[in-house]
């Protein structure tokens, strides 16, 4: 029933025929290029109208209905409804039509309302005014009228109306500042650049004189990628081509800051903008509960069909003789008689299907959806997951996965920013093995704890002096940090705290800020970037100026960044900083050994280390590098790859200068959280790009590894000595031997595995002999399975996702959770069953792509152990209960067929059939599934092992499902045969004249059905009452309320002759039944019998084989006293603190 495969096939087939243009050419100001340049191909682009709404007034009803009936469940009910309309069915079409209509209407209203909101939002956006440059003047138009190629003027604090290429800005240096808060949540100001050839334009007329085209790729959703080229035509000259990158592209939704106004040209409009492309929904994740639910549904569908088949077959076997088929008192109509027997049989089959279709209730979907949607509010409402500092609470991006939080078996966590604060503090640097430690100041705040030894061992020597100078300059120059002078910053005044008006630094990478600030404390202050010159205030308070020529940006594959600068003396210098593994192989001179030793020592202490190297370029070399870079940058195709090649060629032959060490402190309660997760039976894996020693130190600090943990290493270092094959077999032998031993000894040695990216890709790489690769994978998984903790270091972002995929695909199919804060975690967050983003310092990309976002790592504990646990038991009960109550409901109807000649006579009245799932039994379970707490929040937090009780879908496994179904069947038999014996064996009678005389009246089939139904409603509701562990006033209200509602409804339904109904079969039936003593006694008896086995089972299981949860529940009584005292203490505590 999955259409996606089909859809893929179709789309693939269609795409083959489609003509696809790789790039688009934009004519700035709609001016045709000189004929010599190239053929003018007018292309059609969408206008700048944003359409996020799905419907219009005209197509709402058909389209919405189509959308809704595309869902299999709705379609199934529609089919049942249609069958009821077409053939002569036992129940009126109302019984299935009304619930379906209700569901469809509610959904349509909700979607319609949302769409109306979207329309309103669209409208306000599309109509907002925009200044457009036309024929040298500024014209004000509506945003929706913008076309690709229009030149737009944007003022300060205005939002860009579409994706624009910056032409010039009022700042003169061709830069402008932009904040992308509404796009990715990063509040820092980012600098965007204009192409040097256009940045001089100051007025509309000048801009209008520009004659250029822009070639760029077709729109794609990645916010941080853009490749393009601008061709500027000047009279009688060859066009000048300049590369355009993401730093030239102003995105729709971003806001212009600190810049008077800019001129820019529209290149992507309307639905082509990156913002619009990013609103496309992500791939849908399905929870394990949903999968079991689907499995159960299929079972029930089979039951339904087999019931109908059995009854149809029996019907025809039974009415073989004409006297049974058509006794004299009950003839068919002529039309019916003339029908062919096959058609009749088929009609009968359909009629049985209709009669039993309630076994798959439409209301279950609605209830599950409502439960998920409403239930997810508890996460957002939780004040324990609110972070005062950031001012945010947990955020729910999808409510489909709530219960999956209670099923997690593997936790994949990022290290930096997730386990650690990502609040960097410069600790030391080492130049050629000589160590410098600055005053410990971090991000402008003095940390008292750190030592304040200033520059130990600072005896300068000639050669060293030179390296030292270069080292400090390298760190001052090789970064992408922006210096903000406090007057340019409007609201934030952090710089002033230090007493003197200084600047402070902003960067997307906290490491860089820490380094630059560290340098400042060592005497080298980076001042600003002005006219592409970087200014440094050196130790002797002199300003040094370096011309910034090229920035070779950081990326996580290369793991380093470089700048090429020209010093005031005219020297070309390339400074590079990066991870030790990516620097050392490229070093040709320098004191490698000393630096390496220091780096390793620092790494063991858990510090993040970077190595710094430089290379001086001759003018010829510089020219060549320049050429390579611009070639690569101009390429429209494979630009990334060509850039990487160019970088690789330029960044070599380094001279090592030294290394830095930055500390990243662990997040508060990270260790406690990890410990709890491990106790709860989850395997915690740390996936990080950091180097092994640093990561391992963090793991020790966060108690992922303990002192007793035996560390298994699967690293490049080891595989260099032995072959990968041997190492793997070695490790697996160690692990397996231990396991065979542990069968005897109770104390289990736990293992921790460390693997690095290189080895991982070797393990995963399909080797030439086909048998080998599968083997490696299997062995690796086997080892991992036996390790309590795994650390993967040196991981590329994609490798993180690979690991998650590997574990997901292993044979137990465990539920995985990935948590991270940065852009490099997005792939893993999207891959895992549950993706959690941390709203950290590295922007909100992870949070945006996640299913849930939390402010801090420590909140994961409550999220999983409390919320996950609750959601799981709630939804599990919801699903099982729904199936149970519908077995109870429909099975008597099935049994009744054996006593009414298989004639599809319904046991219950139409009203009861319709309302059973909608109103009599719907609210108690919905409220149960929202507020049930089988055990207190404190208990769940205190004892993480309780999580194991619900692990591996414990409450929705087949035995449990079988138990519920059997219980349902048992109850159904009790209801039916109880009523049967009351009616059959005896003169089951009542006082007809309501308490006046004792005239004895007979009861008919509707009384029989009503009796069964009354017992059914009471039993099913009381069964839920027995399962409820947490009786708030809401539960009381809803449970007793719906029973009362049933009674009142029945009294009313039977109380009057309903004018518009063509039958009055329920008239006074309920009241007559209640006026009979045996009916009361029978109802009480049947309810008691139905509930008895479940109570006994519960009590026996609890006493003889209690689960951890049940023990904790029993213990609660002794603990309440203790807790209340704690509560009193905290109360008084909080009062004191206020």
């Amino acid at each position, binding site marked *: 029933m999955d259409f996606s495969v089909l859809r893929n096939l179709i789309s693939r087939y269609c795409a083959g025929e489609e003509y696809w243009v790789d790039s688009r050419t934009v004519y700035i100001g709609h001016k045709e290029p000189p004929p010599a340049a190239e053929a003018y191909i007018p292309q059609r682009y969408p206008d700048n109208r*944003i359409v996020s709404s799905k419907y219009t007034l005209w197509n709402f009803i058909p389209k919405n209905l189509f959308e809704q009936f595309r869902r299999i469940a709705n379609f199934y009910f529609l089919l049942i409804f249609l069958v009821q309309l077409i053939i002569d069915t036992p129940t009126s079409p109302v019984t299935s039509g009304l619930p379906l209509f209700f569901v469809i209407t509610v959904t349509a209203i*909700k979607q319609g309302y949302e769409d109306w909101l*979207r329309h309103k*939002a*669209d409208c306000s956006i599309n109509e907002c005014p925009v200044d457009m440059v036309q024929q040298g003047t500024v014209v004000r138009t509506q945003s929706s009228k913008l076309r690709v190629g229009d030149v737009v003027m944007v003022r300060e604090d205005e939002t860009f109306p579409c994706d624009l290429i910056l032409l010039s800005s009022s700042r003169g240096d061709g830069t402008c500042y932009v904040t992308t808060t*509404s796009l990715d*949540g990063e509040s820092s100001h980012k600098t965007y650049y204009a192409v040097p050839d256009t940045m001089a334009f100051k007025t509309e007329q000048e801009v209008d004189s520009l004659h250029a085209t822009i070639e760029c790729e077709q729109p794609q959703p990645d916010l941080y990628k853009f490749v393009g080229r601008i061709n500027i035509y000047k009279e009688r000259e060859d066009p000048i081509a300049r590369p355009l990158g993401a730093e030239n592209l102003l995105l729709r*939704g971003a806001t212009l800051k600190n810049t008077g106004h800019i001129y820019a040209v529209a290149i992507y409009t309307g639905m082509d903008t990156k*913002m619009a492309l990013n*609103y496309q*929904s992500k791939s849908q994740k399905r929870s394990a509960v*949903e999968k079991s639910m*689907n499995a159960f*549904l299929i079972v029930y569908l089979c039951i339904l069909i087999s019931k109908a088949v059995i009854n149809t077959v029996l019907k025809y076997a039974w009415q073989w003789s004409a*006297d049974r088929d058509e006794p*004299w008192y*009950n*003839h068919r*109509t002529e039309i019916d008689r003339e029908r062919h027997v096959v058609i009749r049989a088929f009609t009968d089959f359909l009629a049985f299907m209709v009669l039993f279709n309630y076994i798959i209730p439409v209301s279950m*979907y609605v209830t599950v*959806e409502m439960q998920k949607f409403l239930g997810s509010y508890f996460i957002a409402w*939780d*004040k324990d997951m609110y972070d*005062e500092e950031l001012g945010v609470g947990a955020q729910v*991006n*999808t409510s489909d996965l709530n219960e999956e939080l209670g099923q997690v078996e593997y936790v994949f966590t990022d290290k930096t920013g997730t386990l650690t604060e990502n609040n960097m503090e410069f600790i030391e640097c080492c130049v050629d093995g000589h160590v410098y430690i600055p005053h410990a100041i971090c991000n402008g705040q003095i940390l008292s704890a750190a030592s304040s030894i200033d520059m130990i061992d600072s005896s300068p020597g000639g050669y060293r002096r030179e390296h030292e100078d270069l080292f400090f300059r390298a760190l001052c120059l090789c970064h992408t940090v922006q210096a903000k002078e406090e007057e340019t910053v409007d609201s934030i005044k952090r710089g002033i705290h230090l007493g003197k008006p200084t600047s402070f630094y902003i960067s997307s990478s906290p490491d860089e800020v820490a380094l630059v600030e560290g340098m400042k404390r060592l005497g080298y202050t980076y001042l600003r970037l002005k006219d592409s010159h970087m200014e440094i205030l050196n130790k002797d308070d002199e300003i040094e100026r370096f011309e910034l020529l090229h920035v070779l940006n950081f990326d996580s594959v290369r793991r380093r960044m470089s700048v090429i600068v020209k010093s005031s003396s005219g020297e070309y210098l390339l400074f590079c900083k990066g991870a030790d593994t990516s620097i050392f192989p490229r070093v040709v001179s320098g004191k490698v050994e000393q630096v390496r030793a220091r780096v390793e020592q620092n790494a063991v202490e858990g510090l993040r280390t970077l190595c710094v190297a430089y290379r001086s370029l001759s003018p010829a070399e510089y020219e060549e590098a320049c050429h390579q870079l611009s070639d690569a940058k101009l390429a429209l195709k494979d630009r990334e790859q060509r850039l990487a090649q160019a970088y690789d060629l330029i960044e070599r032959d380094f001279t090592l200068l030294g290394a830095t060490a930055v500390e990243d402190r662990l997040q508060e309660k990270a260790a406690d959280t990890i410990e709890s997760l491990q106790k709860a039976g989850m395997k915690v894996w740390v996936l990080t790009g950091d180097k092994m020693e640093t990561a391992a130190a963090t793991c020790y600090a966060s108690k992922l590894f303990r002192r007793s943990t035996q560390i298994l290493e699967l690293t490049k270092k080891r595989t260099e000595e032995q072959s990968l094959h041997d190492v793997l077999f070695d490790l697996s032998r160690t692990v397996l031997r231990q396991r065979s031993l542990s069968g005897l000894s109770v104390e289990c040695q736990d293992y921790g595995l460390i693997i690095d990216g290189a080895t991982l890709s070797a393990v995963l790489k399909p080797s030439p002999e086909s048998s080998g690769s599968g083997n490696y994978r299997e062995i690796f998984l086997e080892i991992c399975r036996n390790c309590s903790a795994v650390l993967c270091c040196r991981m590329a972002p994609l490798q993180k996702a690979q690991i998650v995929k590997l574990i997901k695909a292993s044979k137990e199919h465990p539920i995985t959770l990935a948590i991270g804060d940065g852009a490099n975690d997005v792939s893993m967050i999207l891959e895992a069953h549950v993706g959690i983003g941390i709203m950290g310092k590295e922007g*909100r990309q992870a949070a*945006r792509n996640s299913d849930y976002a939390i402010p801090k790592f420590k909140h994961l504990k409550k999220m999983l152990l409390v919320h996950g646990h609750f959601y799981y038991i709630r939804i599990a009960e919801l699903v099982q209960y729904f199936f149970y109550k519908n077995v109870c409901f429909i099975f008597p109807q099935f049994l009744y067929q054996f*006593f*009414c*000649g298989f*004639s599809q006579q319904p046991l219950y009245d139409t009203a009861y059939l319709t309302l059973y799932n909608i109103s009599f039994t719907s609210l108690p379970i919905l409220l149960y599934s929202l507020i049930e707490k089988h055990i207190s929040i404190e208990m769940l937090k205190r004892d993480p092992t309780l999580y194991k009780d619900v692990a591996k879908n414990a409450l929705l496994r087949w035995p449990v499902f079988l138990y519920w179904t059997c219980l349902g069947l048992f109850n159904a038999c009790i209801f039916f045969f109880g009523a049967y*014996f*009351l009616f059959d*064996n*005896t*003169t*089951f*009678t009542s006082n*007809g004249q*309501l308490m006046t005389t*004792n*005239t004895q*009246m*007979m*009861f*008919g*089939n509707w*009384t*029989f059905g009503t009796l069964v139904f009354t017992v059914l409603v009471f039993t099913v509701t009381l069964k839920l009452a027995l399962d409820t562990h947490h*009786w*708030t006033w809401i539960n009381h209200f809803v449970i007793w309320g719906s029973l009362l509602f049933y009674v009142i409804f029945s009294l009313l339904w039977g109380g009057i002759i309903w004018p518009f109904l*063509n039958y*009055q079969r329920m008239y006074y039936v309920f009241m007559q039944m209640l006026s009979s003593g045996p009916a009361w*006694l*029978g109802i009480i008896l049947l309810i008691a019998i139905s509930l008895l086995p479940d109570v006994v089972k519960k009590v026996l299981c*609890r*006493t003889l084989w209690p689960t951890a949860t049940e023990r904790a529940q*029993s213990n*609660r009584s002794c603990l309440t006293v203790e807790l209340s005292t704690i509560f009193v203490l905290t109360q008084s505590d909080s009062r004191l603190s206020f």
Partner: protein
Amino acid sequence: MMASSYNAKEDGHVTVPGGGTIQNKKPDNTAFKQQRLPAWQPILTAGTVLPAFFVIGLIFIPIGIGLYVTSNNIKEFEIDYTGTDMSSPCFNCSQSFSWNSTRPCTCALPFSLEQPFESNVFMYYGLSNFYQNHRRYVKSRDDSQLNGDTTSLMNPSKECEPYARNEKMPIAPCGAIANSMFNDTLDLYYIDPNGTRIQIPLMKKGIAWWTDKHVKFRNPGGNPNLTSAFQGTTKPINWRKPVYELDTDAENNGFINEDFIVWMRTAALPTFRKLYRIIQKKNNMTPTLPRGNYTLEVTYNYPVRSFEGRKRVILSTISWMGGKNPFLGIAYITVGSVCFFLGVVLLIIHHKYGSRNNTADIPN
């Protein structure tokens, strides 16, 4: 596959530019939002359930005994007059049945009561293998016609097919149920010890639900003359006389004839009894039916042989809890005993294992 996700997906883009709007508000610290509503937290342990089981046992067993004794005190006599046996007096009638016969076939069944029936006696007829609960049969009626609606009287609902019209004339009352109304006449005679036959007076009113007789069933029009009220309709095919001649008493004629109303309440199961007559107690001195010999005179009109049915007559006294009903009493006694037994078992378990659990918990 079937679990569709209804609309959670669409929630993603309600607000267009803001995307994920960041909640800057601190969540309210209310008991509901923090899931800390005060609650009663019962746990079903052996300790708490034990008393409940004993109490249920102690309540159910006496009730059961009471019901059983009451039920046993009820006197019931049943006689089958289908006439399938050669020896049966009704054999001839049952064999020579035809719908068109004008001469009614009668037969007399002698029987004797061993014990006197003291209080009011209820006389039932019972049919078996008669599927009054067949779907085609149950719906084959027109409630608005029966409620006296004149348009429905002339245009019976199509649910009544094929018993809606007879030769273009609407049938009143229409439908299969009405058409197959039980039409045997049963008379009861007491044979005095000295041989004289005394007819026992049978009361035919007060056998239907009060609400049925007075609200649900009504004769058409305000016309006291039923013959003209039913003008233009025809009698059901199997009936010997039209509906307005069911009884001479105007209060019991037409649609509000109680025999008819009783028949119209379709039985739940293929074997059923319906109340036929009530024998009222005359005075406190003599029993309603003294012990001795009786004769049941049957006017045999109703054929059941074709579908292998049986016809019975049941005489029964009643108690506060209705007719003879051993099932309820036995069931109550059984359930009560089971509860009591389970209570004992739980008590043992509780003593043996309950303490063990508590000690095992301490290391936790």
